[in-house]
């Protein structure tokens, strides 16, 4: 019980610090939202628009920092994240809500897939050290993990989308498809996600394989594994409940962190594939000095990462009794 309370208390404290930094940091940036917006129009609106924008965005409405801070806290408590200037006059919650499913669908699924596959391959490779699996997969995927992502993604687009024409090269779905809950649309979405998912998987799986393989190897040398073998337990059971359970612990925290960061999107993936996710929205919010959107996204990431760490702490405690509180 004490363990749970301590963890929760720590969670709340971190959340407060993060929320406060989230408020302060964007305000340290130089500039003005109306001017940033003019930059985005690239001289395609009249200079008179600057004045109109300043009025619409309330740029010259100065509020004291302290009172702005309390308004901000109160708004967060009510989940009022404000109006995005990039997507004026849409609410931040609405815009993020539209982009988030794409990010969760693509980045979330591939992150989990990379972890599960990578861990499994790493475990098997270590179990049959020097075997065929160990000789092929770890080296290949360690090399692919070192690829610069955008380079590999562009190469994949060139090969599979342009040269061979098997898969669409960009977007979340084909624009001539009618959006809705239909098989045609679902098929189209899946088709559009294959290439980005494949590139993410190939470039991110190596780290999980390597971590899991190395951990398993050191765990396999432990006395309790030798003990289990001596007792004549089935190799399958030793691999999973003795070696695997212990070897996965260090990977787990890393996995929790990367799960938390899923909601931040993946800017490079979204940029290269013109994929409608959150990462690109993040970049836009910074470029346009869109405080409301920036804060909304930061808040979401902070909460997600903290929750993921909390969950990982819990999972570690379940898997490894040593980490629980001593009385």
């Amino acid at each position, binding site marked *: 019980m004490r363990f749970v309370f301590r963890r929760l208390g720590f969670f709340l404290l971190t959340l407060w610090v993060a929320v406060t930094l989230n408020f302060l940091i964007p305000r340290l940036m*130089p*500039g*003005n939202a109306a*001017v*940033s*917006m*003019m*930059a*985005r*129009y690239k*001289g*395609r*609106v*009249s*200079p*008179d*628009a*600057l*004045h*109109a*924008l300043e*009025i*619409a965005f309330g740029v010259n409405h100065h509020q004291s920092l302290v009172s702005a801070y309390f308004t901000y806290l109160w708004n967060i408590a009510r989940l009022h994240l404000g*109006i995005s200037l*990039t*997507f*004026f*006059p*849409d609410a931040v919650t609405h*815009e993020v809500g*539209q*982009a988030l499913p794409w990010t969760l669908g693509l980045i979330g699924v591939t992150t989990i897939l990379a972890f599960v596959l990578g861990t499994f391959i790493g475990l098997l490779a270590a179990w049959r050290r020097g075997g*065929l699996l160990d000789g*092929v997969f770890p080296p290949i995927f360690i090399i692919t993990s070192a690829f610069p992502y955008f380079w590999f993604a*562009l190469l994949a687009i060139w090969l*599979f989308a*342009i040269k*061979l*024409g*098997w*898969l669409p*090269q*960009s*977007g*979340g779905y*084909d*624009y*001539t498809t*009618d*959006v809705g809950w239909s098989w045609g649309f679902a*098929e189209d979405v899946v*088709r559009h996600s294959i290439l980005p998912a494949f590139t993410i998987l190939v470039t991110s799986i190596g780290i999980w394989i390597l971590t899991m393989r190395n951990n398993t190897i050191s765990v396999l040398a432990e006395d309790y594994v030798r003990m289990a073998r001596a007792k004549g337990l089935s190799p399958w059971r030793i691999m999973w409940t003795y070696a695997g359970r212990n070897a996965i612990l260090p990977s787990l925290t890393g996995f929790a962190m990367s799960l938390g960061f899923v909601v931040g999107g993946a800017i490079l993936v979204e*940029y*290269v*594939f*013109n994929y*409608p996710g959150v990462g*690109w929205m993040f970049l836009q919010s910074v*470029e*346009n000095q869109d405080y409301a959107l920036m804060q909304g996204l930061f808040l979401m990431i902070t909460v997600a990462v903290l929750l993921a760490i909390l969950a990982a702490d819990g999972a570690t405690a379940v898997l490894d009794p040593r980490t629980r509180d001593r009385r």
Partner: protein
Amino acid sequence: MRRLVAVALLVALGASAWAAGLGSASEKRAAATTTVTISNEQGTTWTCGFNPFNGGTVPLSFGTVYEPLTFSDPLKSGATTNWLASAYAWSNHNRTLTFTIRSGVKWTDGKPFSAKDVLFTFNMIKANPALDLNGVWSVLKSVSANGNKVTFAFKTSAVPYFYNIADKTPIVAQHVWSSVGNPVTYKDSSPIGTGAFTMSSCSPQVIKYQKNPAYWQKGLPKIDTVYYPAYTSNDPANQDLASGKAQWGSQFIPNINAFYLSKSKDNHYWFPPVANVSIFVNLKDPILSNVAVRRAMAYAIDKRRVSQIGEYGYEPPANQTGIVTPTFASWLNPKLAKQVTYNPAKAIAILKAAGFKMKGGVFQTPQGKSLSFTMINIGGYSDWVASAQLVAQQLKAVGIKITAENLSQTTYNNDTYTGKYQLSYNGNEPPGPAPYYELREILYSKNSAPIGTIAPSNWERYSNPAVDTLIDAYGATTSASVQHGIIDKLAAAMVRDVPVIPVTEGVDWYQYNTKSLAGWVTQQNPYARPAAYENPDWGVVLLHLKPKG
């Protein structure tokens, strides 16, 4: 090992067959109707708002759904076509403008359009300054309607604002907008306009427009559907153009001959020049305020080379008068244009005559300060970065040292607008239907501001009462010969005072495919600005398009 390879091969084959199968299934949706797909990297996903008074969404509704009173063609020096107005006239020493409103026009919800809608639109803008994207109420005194006539009374003579009022202001329906709570934050998700198209569906990734069957111009439009996908980056947008998936492009394509033209004989492009890309010189800088330094710089830059190497030849070299050619060639005094040409020897002579001394390859002021400046630039514009690099090399050759600073767009804009720079490589002045508009943006002292305060467009902070008088005088006349005389004098001021140094001419990015569509804007028939982001021009282009054959 062999078995593993075999398994891997099988998996790969299976996956590819599956993917190929999916591919053929989705290609069966053949188009029986005439469609146009626009490929224009706007760097944003769609909000599905269509408020025509919101700078972000006006290019998505104004021209197709909403329409102006008249259309002025910027590529023909503002040649005017009546649109929702059937006639207009100036009176009272060019201080009163009267429009006759067209009859028989209907909103897409079936209600008739009238002069009351025009009156309502302008009064709504007056009541909400945040809607006034074109500054019309900076010159207007009042608007009134009588029968089918709408009369605009001006505070001062401001003839060039005809363009802002008649071409740049979308007319909205009183019966829709009068019940809108706050028109500034109104999203307008299902816009009701008078235009040739209606917005039929929208998602963050694509907008679909359908033909308005009851459009007031009989027999138009000839195309049924327009798709406007959202591209957040350039490459996918260019790729769709090259593959023919999109027919109308509006962006920069590096090496366009190999990447686009060679892909199909139906692919074409035309980049009409509309404004200048210039070096803005901060006139409040103690050394740069000396006109000799600026003149020397103007002579030292080989604009032809910058155009060819930095801009792939897409943007032609500019001239010191600031009058864009060939678009506004009829306004240009060729003698003035030839006064400043590439001549490094002359640049050095000017600096020497002004008392500067060369020391270690760099000129110094009589007080011993080096002619060494930083030039800010947008790091994300690869062509500008290359051009600025060339400019720096050329200036170095005459003893002026330039350090290029490639900034983020936000920092760059902020520094430029507030005057916290020495030199700014810049092509962000909005073009107009005559050279006057850009010259006013650059030269008019009312567009300037003290250092540290945001200046709308006179970023170099030029101020000359004689020039201000000329600009005001232009606003009071509708006589073409008087206007040409004034432009000549403004161009002379550009050459004499060198407040900015035009380097290349910014263009409208425009690529088009003639496989199944005809009626595109061409150099021979420039009936509107051809970039899809230009409004209301893009609506005019869509009205001219028709199925081929």
